């Protein structure tokens, strides 16, 4: 069990962690969430006695780490995957750590097998990818077969297979009765892995609850109701009827209504009674990611601003042509490809303009998820065989021209997918 009481850490006049108190219990995976720079790693380092708290204390099994008897056999940690001498082989790195705690060399080969690095054990870790580095770090944490495990962002740089492996590993370790403390800035990952959540922002505790409580507290079901755009008075009418029936109605930006507190059939009945036609009545669930972002909103230290690019773009020298975009590589898919005959004309205006049936996001995601030319009926997609961008093109900002009527970048990859896959006129 890890127990922090009033933990505070200041670097000069910057407070990294302030008055943090929590307990990490054995037999469960405890997720440690927070935005970048919120103090997660600092807290981890204080747990391991690497940084001295300015005030407060943190103990493992009742002892401060630096006074813990035989600490490396009790506590294993992955702090920084790159904290390895690049010239040393993976095996020698682990061997030096094993020898420190009197662990036999046989165990080194065992953990190398567990993390799947046995084939590169003799290679210098300089050439390791971030994912391989993470695996090496996890191997180091597992060396002493410890009862308490700390992992700082263990899935960074891992491939999907590796992420699944780490997830199952954490669960298995916790199921064996160990204390597992995992930091992450990905709510979605923690929702799948952790049993308990500790959320911090700006070094202060925001939430300390089980994942189940977090989900039920934060992911309320709601229905989205859309009335005909052409008759705004119908919307008012329906809104009034729903509120009267005990529902909670919240207008959304695009004219739809977000309704909570009423089941879908009841909404339909009420609309029917009020004589209001519906264009949409759909069930939705607020994502955990949204809930997490709401919670940490005020505590984000590093927020991006819009890139103005003012004056940065260099004028092309006279006579030079802008680089020819490669079909399907990064450029927005809704541009018609340069026709070979025209040669010097790389950009053609979007076919039909922004308001046309196959608008920007009409064709793009279809190309991302479907086979080339799959969705019949998308005029541009059929007419233009190069219009299917690679999946990353959907998220990549348009390099030259901002997409007309493009929605704001999705906060969570999963959430707005339902909207963007539909052509605008189908909503």
């Amino acid at each position, binding site marked *: 069990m890890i127990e922090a009481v009033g933990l505070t850490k200041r670097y000069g006049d910057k407070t990294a962690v302030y008055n943090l108190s929590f307990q990490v219990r054995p037999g469960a995976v405890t997720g440690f969430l927070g935005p970048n720079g919120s103090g997660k790693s600092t807290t981890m380092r204080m747990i*391991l006695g690497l940084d001295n708290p300015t005030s407060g204390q943190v103990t493992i099994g009742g002892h401060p780490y630096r006074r813990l008897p035989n600490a490396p056999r009790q506590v294993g940690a992955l702090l920084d995957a790159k*904290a*390895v001498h690049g010239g040393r082989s993976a095996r020698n790195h682990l061997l030096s750590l094993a020898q420190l705690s009197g662990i036999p060399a046989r165990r080194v080969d065992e953990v190398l097998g567990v993390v799947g690095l046995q084939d590169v054990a003799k290679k210098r870790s300089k050439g390791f990818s971030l994912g391989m580095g993470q695996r090496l770090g996890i191997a180091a944490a597992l060396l002493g077969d410890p009862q308490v495990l700390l992992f700082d962002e263990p899935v960074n740089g891992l491939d999907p297979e590796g992420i699944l492996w780490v997830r199952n590993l954490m669960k298995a370790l916790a199921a064996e009765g160990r204390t597992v403390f995992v930091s992450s800035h990905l709510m979605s990952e923690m929702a799948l892995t952790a049993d308990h959540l500790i959320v911090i922002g700006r070094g202060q505790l925001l939430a300390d609850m089980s994942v189940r409580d977090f989900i039920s507290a934060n992911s309320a079901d709601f229905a989205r109701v859309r009335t005909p755009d052409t008759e705004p008075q119908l919307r008012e009418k329906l809104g009034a009827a729903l509120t009267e029936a005990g529902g909670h109605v919240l207008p959304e930006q695009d004219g739809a209504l977000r309704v909570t507190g009423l089941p879908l059939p009841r909404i339909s009945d009420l609309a029917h009674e009020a004589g209001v036609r519906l264009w949409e009545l759909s069930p939705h669930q607020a994502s955990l990611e949204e809930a997490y972002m709401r919670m940490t909103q005020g505590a984000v230290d590093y927020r991006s601003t819009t890139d103005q690019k003012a004056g940065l773009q260099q004028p092309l020298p006279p006579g030079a042509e802008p680089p020819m975009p490669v079909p399907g590589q990064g450029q927005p898919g809704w541009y018609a490809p340069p026709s070979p005959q025209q040669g010097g004309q790389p950009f053609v205006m979007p076919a039909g303009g922004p308001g046309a049936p196959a608008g920007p996001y009409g064709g793009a995601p279809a190309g991302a998820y479907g086979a080339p030319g799959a969705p019949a009926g998308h005029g541009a997609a059929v007419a233009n065989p190069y219009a299917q961008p690679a999946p990353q093109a959907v998220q990549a900002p348009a390099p030259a021209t901002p997409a007309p009527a493009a929605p704001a970048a999705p906060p969570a990859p999963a959430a707005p997918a339902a909207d963007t896959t539909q052509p605008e006129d189908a909503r």
Partner: protein
Amino acid sequence: MTSVRTGRPRQTSPTAGVAQVLRSEWTKIRSVSSTGWTLSVAVVVTIGIGMLISALTRNEYDTMPVRERLTLDPTFVSFAGMTLGQLAMIVFGVLVVTNEYSTGMIRVSLAAVPRRGAFLFGKIAVAGALALVVGMITSFATFFLGQAMLGPYRAGLGDPGVLRAVVGGGLYLTLIAVFSMGVAAMLRSPLLSLGILMPFFFLISNILAAVDSTKKAGRFLPDQAGSRIMQAVPRADEAPYGPWGGLGIMALWVIAALAGGYALLRRRDAQ
């Protein structure tokens, strides 16, 4: 703490802990290529320059002034490469300590050895022992090869003061390396440590010892005091200490550097 735990963790005795740290540090030091490079450069440079200067001295012996011929110290002549060779020893000492910091490995190491004194002195003991072995080999090799170059003017190991000078040469190189480790433990950055130590030992210390006004203080600098033990023939400019006294002064510098490194490591956050 947990129901799964079978018993209390095995309480290791302090001596067992030290042996583990030593074994681990030996694995660390032998598994990086910088160890081999820096130490072999130290050996090659010291022996190479020692042989060269010895050969030149032999050729020029007849043209030397009588006074110089009479005070010729063949042992010290063959150690002429120490000035440069010690720089490689400094690099060795600095890298052994600072690569923990530059790679971030220090956090892994200190998480594994919460007793920071055991970590630092274990590392320095292993690196120092290696430096002692290499230093002794270098010192004896450079003596014998240098004397071979000197031909008729050579000194023998049995001559007065010679064995002490040769053993002292090995100790000198060791102490230089350990001093660098202490300084590096205080400074943590390889660039900063090398940027201070290299010019200090190559230039500043020699300048201070050569200029009259600073000569008295310059004699007490670690390399000036320590190098006295490598002279088999006593010099006219009597320093206020003998060969072993000089080495003692150097050892005090080393102890001070190590104490500073330990005090800072114990107090500071590990990063």
